[in-house]
């Protein structure tokens, strides 16, 4: 009951925000005049303001720039969130059991032998199967399209790991000690790429996009027609991995 109320309150809030945003845009356009319209850049919203469905965060990954021997994005993720080489925990887990938020994958065209290297992480679906199957509401999609696990509610059942077509989620099998302040992780819960939600909320881009030496990972707002990512998606070909599942992914790839 209280959940329903909270949800309707949130909805009202989002209506209010949209209305205020529109009025602000009109005011901005009015003061600038001459056909100039203010467009919001991917700046930080105030800390007190909730994530809004006016944004949808996503990535565009150009695999033609992605070298097979480079894993700077994976390293940056490990450092940011304290998994893999970013931590000395998980000593007893087998490699396939250990946390893996992002991995480098090589795909090979059988007919031509051409190999493509790409980073693979949570694809931040608009219709995420992991959210559909979660029995506790822990696996969730934020209003701005970021899919993540609310570990306060996660019971570690791992249904979401089964449901994910991208093998994006990991389960933590042992007690951890070296977590990052901004990326709490713990035994008995499932986790995955959260698009560096901590950085995005500060107005920064995800660690992988920042670390890529070839600038192959472009982060931005898919809802904002003026953003670099939306412009490139509109003008250049890109593809979803397993697009046949029609999950409407937030992460798109080029040249595969």
């Amino acid at each position: 009951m209280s959940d329903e109320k909270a949800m309707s309150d949130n909805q009202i809030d989002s209506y209010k925000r949209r209305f205020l945003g529109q009025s602000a845009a009109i005011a901005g356009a009015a003061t600038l005049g001459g056909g100039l319209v203010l467009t919001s850049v991917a700046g930080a919203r105030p800390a007190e303001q909730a994530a809004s469905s006016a944004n949808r965060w996503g990535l565009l990954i150009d695999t033609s720039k992605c070298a097979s021997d480079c894993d700077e994005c994976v390293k940056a993720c490990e450092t940011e969130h304290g998994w893999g080489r970013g931590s000395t925990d998980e000593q007893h887990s087998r490699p396939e059991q250990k946390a893996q938020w992002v991995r480098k994958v090589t795909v090979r065209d059988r007919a031509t032998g051409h190999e493509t290297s790409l980073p693979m992480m949570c694809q931040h679906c608009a219709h995420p199967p992991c959210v559909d199957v979660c029995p506790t509401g822990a696996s969730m999609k934020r209003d701005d399209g970021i899919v993540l696990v609310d570990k306060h509610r996660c019971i570690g059942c791992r249904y979401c790991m089964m449901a994910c077509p991208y093998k994006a989620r990991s389960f933590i099998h042992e007690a951890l000690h070296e977590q990052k302040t901004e990326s709490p992780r713990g035994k008995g819960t499932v986790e995955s790429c959260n698009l560096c939600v901590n950085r995005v909320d500060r107005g920064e881009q995800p660690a992988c996009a920042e670390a890529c030496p070839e600038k192959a990972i472009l982060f931005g707002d898919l809802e904002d027609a003026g953003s670099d990512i939306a412009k490139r998606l509109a003008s250049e070909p890109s593809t979803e991995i397993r697009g046949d599942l029609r999950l409407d992914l937030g992460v798109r790839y080029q040249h595969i």
Partner: protein
Amino acid sequence: MKRYGYSLLPLLVLLLTAGAPALAGAPKPDIPEAIKGEQCVEDTGFMRRNHMELLEHQRDDTVRRGIRSKKHSLKNCFTCHVVKGDDGKAVTASDPRHFCRECHDYAAVNVDCWQCHVSTPEPRGDKL
């Protein structure tokens, strides 16, 4: 009636004499001073009774809605409530001297925050 009165008398005396020192010096948790020594984000009495409500509300707002106001965040607790160990570093929640442990041990209330969250202030920006 009289019979009961006589048999209870020694017990009553024993209770009174044993209870007196306990009343005078009942053990109390030794709450560490905040390092900044200022007023907490809310009134001290309010915080002692309601900190769990504030933290729980904030955690849902932060994780599920992306509201990251600092005031009632766990991270903000540890900007002031830090206990330095013998080596000069902040002690973690595995140490009974930790700010949270001091009362939680006394009240025998076990919290599982520290299975995931760090219990010390952390300098950011370390590289691989």
